[in-house]
């Protein structure tokens, strides 16, 4: 048994190494397929980052009446935080709101002067509420409308931002669905192209396969080396792809971060290193061996 396996691997390596042009073409096509899968994986991370960033910027603010005391508001904050849809609640005191306003508009002296003209702090205490999902803000707003402490609330700005919030929610959901659909289509194309390339390389050997059958070789002893050849092609393509992606993610990372602050491609690559390598290996080796297995069947009928 061991001898047979050794011979199969030796024959597989021979097929791969002795027809260099076919081997190169097969490795190249598999490399493209693996690169596509890897790119889609990294792009999924990137699009999740974009969507999350957009979602992070969304919140609703609850402004309290002047007569609402800080202790009351902090108590309301604890109550809102218990709500399952709520991710975090931040208390902004009137003084803090004023300080943030002055900092944001420090270059606009007219605005600063008009605040000073009022003679008092015009800002109300507020709670800034972030939900887990954009689609949950409606539920949070309804909760606030019907809560016991509703009398202390001056204004909830959900309705003013509603269209933006719903737009982002809809965009996130659509982007995820489109992303999955496009990924599936591209992967199918990659698989078909790779399969046909392997099929052509096996066609190249169709006469040899027929001869092997005629001189008494069993189907397994004929198929084995071709599966090994497919696996070798897949392994080499994986190695090249992995090295290239390591280099590309490292060199492009800072450039991408300039445009998308907070997204480090290299960090994403490193943190998903083993998953990505596993994905590339499975894609390359599975594609190489499965394609060989399917392609060779028709020539084993002699």
């Amino acid at each position, binding site marked *: 048994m061991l*001898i*047979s396996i050794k*011979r199969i691997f030796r024959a597989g390596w*021979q*097929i791969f190494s*002795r*027809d260099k042009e076919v081997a190169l073409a097969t490795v190249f096509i598999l490399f493209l397929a693996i690169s596509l899968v890897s790119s889609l994986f990294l792009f999924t991370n990137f699009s999740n980052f974009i969507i999350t960033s957009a979602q992070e910027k969304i919140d609703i603010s609850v402004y309290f009446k002047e007569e609402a005391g800080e202790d009351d508001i902090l108590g309301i904050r604890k109550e809102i935080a218990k709500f399952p849809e709520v991710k975090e609640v931040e208390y902004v005191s009137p003084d803090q709101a004023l300080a943030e306003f002055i900092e944001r508009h420090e270059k606009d002296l007219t605005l600063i002067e008009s605040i000073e003209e009022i003679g008092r702090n015009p800002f109300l205490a507020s709670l800034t509420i972030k939900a887990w999902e954009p689609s949950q803000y409606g539920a949070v707003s309804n909760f606030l409308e019907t809560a016991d402490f509703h009398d202390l609330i001056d204004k909830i700005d959900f309705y003013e931002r509603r269209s933006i919030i719903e737009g982002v929610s809809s965009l996130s959901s659509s982007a995820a669905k489109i992303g999955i659909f496009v990924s599936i289509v591209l992967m199918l194309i990659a698989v078909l192209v790779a399969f046909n390339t392997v099929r052509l390389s096996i066609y190249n*050997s169709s*006469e*040899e396969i027929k*001869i*092997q*059958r*005629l*001189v*008494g*070789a*069993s*189907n397994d*002893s004929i198929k084995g080396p071709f599966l090994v050849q497919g696996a070798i092609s897949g392994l080499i393509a994986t190695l090249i792809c992995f090295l290239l992606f390591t280099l590309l993610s490292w060199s492009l990372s800072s450039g991408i971060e300039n445009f998308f602050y907070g997204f480090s491609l290299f960090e994403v690559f490193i943190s998903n290193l083993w998953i990505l390598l596993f994905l590339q290996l499975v894609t390359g080796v599975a594609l190489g061996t499965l394609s060989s297995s399917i392609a060779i069947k028709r020539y*084993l*009928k*002699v």
Partner: protein
Amino acid sequence: MIKFENITKIYPCHASESNPTIALADVSFEVKSEDFISIVGKSGAGKTTLLKLLLAEEKPTKGRVFFENQDVHKIEPENLPYLRRKIGAVFQDYKLLSSKTTYENTAYILEVTGASDKEIKKAVPIILEIVGLKDRANNFPAQLSGGERQRAAIARALIHRPEVILADEPTGNLDPYHTLDIIELLLKINKMGTTVILSTHDREVINKLGKRVITLEKGKIVRDEKRGRFIL
């Protein structure tokens, strides 16, 4: 041992041709164990088709082919290799594996039948020496002459000591010296108990052998003589 029973083989025609090709028409004959049979005839007489039918490379239009009382065309495809291992075939077009060297082509049969590396290392050089290809062991078929390829095909057919040798024009590309060597080798193997079915155009070979000769003409047996001669 081998029996051809009412064998007819018709190849269908292409649209441009009006008549299908009748390669064999109602051919029947038996081959006993340890026989040495020569099959002669013009090109297109049906010699190669007969050998292909025995190997189950082609299916007969009518009739049956028996090998050791088993209808070869009723054997399951996955079991055909076991039949073919009992037969050493020298094909007219050599059918060498182009991606393997002469050594590897010869060793291939032993590998698929599970021989050990030690057995292969011992047997292959001997057979290559016998056919005069010891110095060409590491060459690929593309690097061999027609005669060398033919000898490589012969080496591959003989190495695993099959029960039957099917030789389709094994001396067609050989010079007289090698022709004599190969025919003597076939005779020696036959004496040791291997059945030999030889298809040839070579009149001198046939007349020298003095063995059974089956003459085919337009797909039919016209003569079957125990000690035959090549008759035009």
